[in-house]
């Protein structure tokens, strides 16, 4: 079994390689490039998916051996990978998304025919999936860094795919620079581990933390937190995310938001739980706090957006925050010596990672379909799409419900687990710190509610009511493959939401590897129908039960119809327009208007600016024309990054004076150096 899964894994990687090659070879023939590259990607992803799932389900992953992908022909580096439980789990994420998104892309790519080079898109898409998979599987620090960098670079090229627009170019550069800063931290971090263990193989790093001196240990933690934080988009390292995701092609945004930022989560889990051993308490506190901040700020900024894809990007920040809450709690429990609770929190975090990957990818694909149909990302120009793009609307609605953590879908399940671990965490310590758990739980509640508000806006303004522009009026439903891709993810959302106990079985090898526990049995009650929090009587939930119950209760209205409403008729009429001359789209509530109350309540954060110009004949209340502008400030950019950037440029310009062109000055430099060295040598 293990052999088989390994074979499938290698087959998948090979498939990605072939896809990349095919894309770049056939770059002259669009259709061929499209079918070949994305076809290969789909098949490869499928085989990887099967391999990873079987490895986890059969527990083969637990006994995985590290082996060399191919013999290394350069010194130091070993291309060695090991499909261990953690790697396999994230492998599931990337391959599941890879499958759905590749299918989707077959229908999405033709939108670029004649304008752009499909081969490049397909090729780099395959490369991205392959490198991401390798990041999850690599077990040699140098190899990890190599694939990590190649992954970042591939993503950079994909983000800058439509490089004709300056916005895209700047976003790409911003992303690449920040990602590379992160890599810098990682390099130092890994070499500190190398310093301590004398090797690059991950085996050598297992539980290394105990052997590190406190100073080194702290710096390693901070370096990895920052390094992976940049990639994951943790506030305040997040600003590349809302810039880069919207400008990328939608299938790429889906991969980036679904998988790419998860590499950060993977790295943190790998380092903090696998390498560092028993953490000091403040690590967990830091991570938990960062997570809470990211969650709340992420969703608040998302509410202010009316660019559909930017909105989704900000939600990625929010969900990364939720995941970090779980991780932080797990670290704190490890510290206070509650491995079971730690495993629960870890499972919550990682399950949410999977769920977020699924529904965020689904939403991005939906946004892509909308973009494909209306050629705009601006929600204010949309509306009425639910009647024109029925299936897309349905899929997007499912995604929206899931991401708002509403039962019975998967978002609810993982957040339920998070709540449980937080609440039970209260008992783990007696210090004041434990107040953090319920408080961050409350913040999680706030996040969820705001997310719901945000997606009422996103779905309502985009898909409901009358079209706000001709583009929206002429929108058509997306082609079959695109719908199929979304369908796969929708199914995944439902499955992950309704049958959590089945999925949680996969976590056993994982938790055994990281915390030495194994919870799937405690987590399942009533032969798997009900999800129960680990400790007895902690609380139970059964999404499937809720759904079935709701369906059963549907007899109530049915009976009512039979009793009362048999002879009623249904009339279709225009919406009530207060007696005006018909209702126009201008009278609809806009996205900006929808989020106005929130904007006002949190105005200290957003610092909104508005300009209103009103032209009227006799009374300001009957304006003939009105121009309204409203801006919200991205505090971290305007207060943190822009000043730093400008400072650097200013200093550099000052320095240019050194090279002023006068040969006398140059001679003086040499002279001074000579004299200085002579004195030094004396």
């Amino acid at each position, binding site marked *: 079994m293990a052999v088989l899964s390994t074979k499938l894994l290698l087959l998948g990687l090979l498939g990605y390689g072939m896809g990349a090659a095919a894309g770049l070879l056939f770059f002259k023939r669009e259709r061929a490039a499209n079918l070949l590259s994305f076809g290969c990607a789909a098949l490869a992803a499928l085989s990887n998916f099967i391999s990873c799932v079987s490895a986890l389900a059969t527990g083969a992953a637990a006994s995985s051996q590290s082996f060399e992908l191919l013999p290394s022909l350069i010194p130091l580096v070993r291309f060695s990978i090991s499909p261990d439980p953690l790697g396999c789990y994230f492998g599931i994420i990337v391959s599941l998304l890879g499958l759905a998104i590749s299918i989707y892309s077959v229908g999405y790519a033709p939108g670029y025919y004649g304008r752009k080079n499909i081969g490049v898109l397909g090729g780099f898409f395959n490369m991205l999936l392959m490198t991401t998979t390798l990041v999850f599987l690599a077990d040699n620090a140098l190899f990890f860094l190599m694939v990590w960098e190649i992954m970042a670079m591939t993503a950079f090229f994909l983000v800058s795919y439509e490089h004709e627009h300056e916005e895209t170019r700047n976003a790409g550069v911003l992303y690449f620079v920040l990602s590379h800063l992160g890599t810098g931290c990682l390099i130092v971090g890994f070499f500190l581990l190398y310093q301590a263990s004398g090797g690059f193989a991950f085996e050598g790093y297992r539980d290394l933390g105990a052997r590190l001196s406190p100073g080194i240990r702290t710096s390693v933690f901070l370096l990895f937190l920052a390094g992976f934080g940049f990639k994951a988009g943790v506030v305040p390292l997040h600003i590349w995310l809302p810039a880069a995701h919207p400008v990328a092609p939608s299938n790429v945004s889906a991969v980036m938001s679904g998988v790419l930022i998860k590499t950060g989560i993977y790295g943190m889990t790998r380092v903090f739980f696998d390498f560092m051993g028993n953490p000091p308490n403040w690590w967990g506190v830091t991570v938990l706090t960062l997570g809470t901040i990211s969650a709340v700020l992420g969703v608040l900024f998302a509410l202010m957006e009316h660019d559909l894809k930017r909105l989704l990007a900000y939600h990625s920040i929010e969900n990364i925050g939720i995941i970090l809450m779980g991780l932080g709690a797990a670290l704190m429990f490890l510290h206070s010596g509650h491995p079971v609770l730690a495993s629960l929190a870890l499972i919550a975090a990682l399950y949410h990672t999977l769920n977020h990957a699924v529904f965020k990818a689904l939403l991005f694909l939906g946004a892509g379909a909308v973009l494909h149909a209306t050629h705009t990302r601006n929600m204010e120009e949309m509306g009425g799409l639910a009647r024109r793009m029925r299936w897309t609307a349905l899929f997007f609605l499912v995604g929206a419900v899931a991401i708002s953590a509403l039962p019975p879908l998967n978002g609810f399940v993982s957040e339920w687990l998070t709540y449980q671990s937080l*609440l039970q965490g209260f008992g783990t310590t007696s210090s004041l710190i434990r*107040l953090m758990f319920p408080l961050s739980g409350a913040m999680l509640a706030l996040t969820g509610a705001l997310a719901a508000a945000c997606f009422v806006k996103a779905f309502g303004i985009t898909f409901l009511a009358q079209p706000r522009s001709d583009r929206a009026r002429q929108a058509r439903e997306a082609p079959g493959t695109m719908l199929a891709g979304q369908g796969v993810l929708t199914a995944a959302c439902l499955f992950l939401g309704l049958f959590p106990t089945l999925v949680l079985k996969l976590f056993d090898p994982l938790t055994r590897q990281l915390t030495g526990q194994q919870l799937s049995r405690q987590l399942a009650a009533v032969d798997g129908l009900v999800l129960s929090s680990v400790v007895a009587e902690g609380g139970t939930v059964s999404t499937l039960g809720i759904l079935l119950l709701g369906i059963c209760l549907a007899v109530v209205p049915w009976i009512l119809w039979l009793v009362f409403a048999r002879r009623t008729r249904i009339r*279709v009429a225009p919406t009530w327009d207060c007696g005006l001359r018909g209702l126009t789209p201008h009278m609809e509530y806009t996205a900006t208007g929808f989020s106005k109350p929130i904007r006002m309540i949190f105005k200290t954060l957003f610092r909104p600016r508005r300009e209103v110009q009103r032209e009227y004949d006799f009374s300001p209340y009957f304006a003939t024309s009105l121009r309204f502008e409203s801006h919200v400030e991205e505090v971290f950019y305007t207060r943190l990054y822009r000043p730093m950037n400008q400072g650097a440029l200013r200093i550099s310009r000052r320095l240019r004076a050194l090279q002023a062109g006068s040969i006398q000055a140059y001679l003086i430099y040499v002279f001074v150096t000579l004299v200085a060295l002579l004195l030094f040598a004396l």
Partner: protein
Amino acid sequence: MNPNPPAIVLQTLLLLFLAPLVSGYMKNWKAKLQNRRGAPPWQVYLDLAKFLRKDMVLSEHASWVFSFAPYVVFLTALTAGLMVPMLIAQAPLSLFGGVLAMVGLLALGRFFLALGGLDPGSAFGGMGSSREMTISAIAEPALMLAVFTVAITAGTTDLSRIAQSTQDAAWKLLNPARVLAFAALFIVLLAETGRIPVDNPATHLELTMIHEAMLLEYSGRYLALMEWGASIKQLVLMTLLVNVFIPVGLAGPHAPFLGLAMSLIAYLVKLTVLAAAMVVVETTNAKLRLFRVPDLLSTAFVLAALALLSTFLFYGS
């Protein structure tokens, strides 16, 4: 532990038929306090029946979401209701989910309610949805924090267990944490059920209404479902308050018929008191401006936080 069908049926019927009566009585008492005669308490039933018989007008702009929303609103409220202990300490469906699931279900209902408000494309609906989502969002942390305080003391999120844990130790009723949490939840209740000072259920004045604004385009049986769902939701929340914080007189798991009757009486008494309190608050206060509501709710949050702090002081350290 396993759900027993008779309990489910009983509680479902109770929810269905008690809810309108409660809102009816509250309307009636309000009128009385305002020196009006007011409609009889059972008027609400008649209204519902009338709505159900009437023809429906659907907006031509609306999509399937508009017709789907009423069912969701109604059913989520009903399902959530089955997770709260009403007469028997053991809520019939506490197995399917505790307080988290209940709050989640109500949120799901609200989600679709808001979508239904947006769908016809009238400005009122949008305004209503926007305000509804905002207020519920800032009410959520207070609600959760208050619930957490009791959940932590009881060590579970299962409502029946929380109720029982307090039932057998009566002194915990007067535990400051509970009192504060109760106060917080009471404020949240006002907000969630759209009562003055947050919303005015009796008005259709466009500047003030929130909940009604979303229902403007609904008519006929859908309107009936919406109204009914709303009243059920209100009853569920009130039950949550009275039965979780003051689980006096809740019947045990296998109570004889008499025990059930006793607990029904106790329940009705508690409900009456709570309803009266709400009516008094409503009649003695004026509605707040929308941007004043956060102050009120932050008060609730602070109360809940204090409750948490006192829990910390009590909880063995």
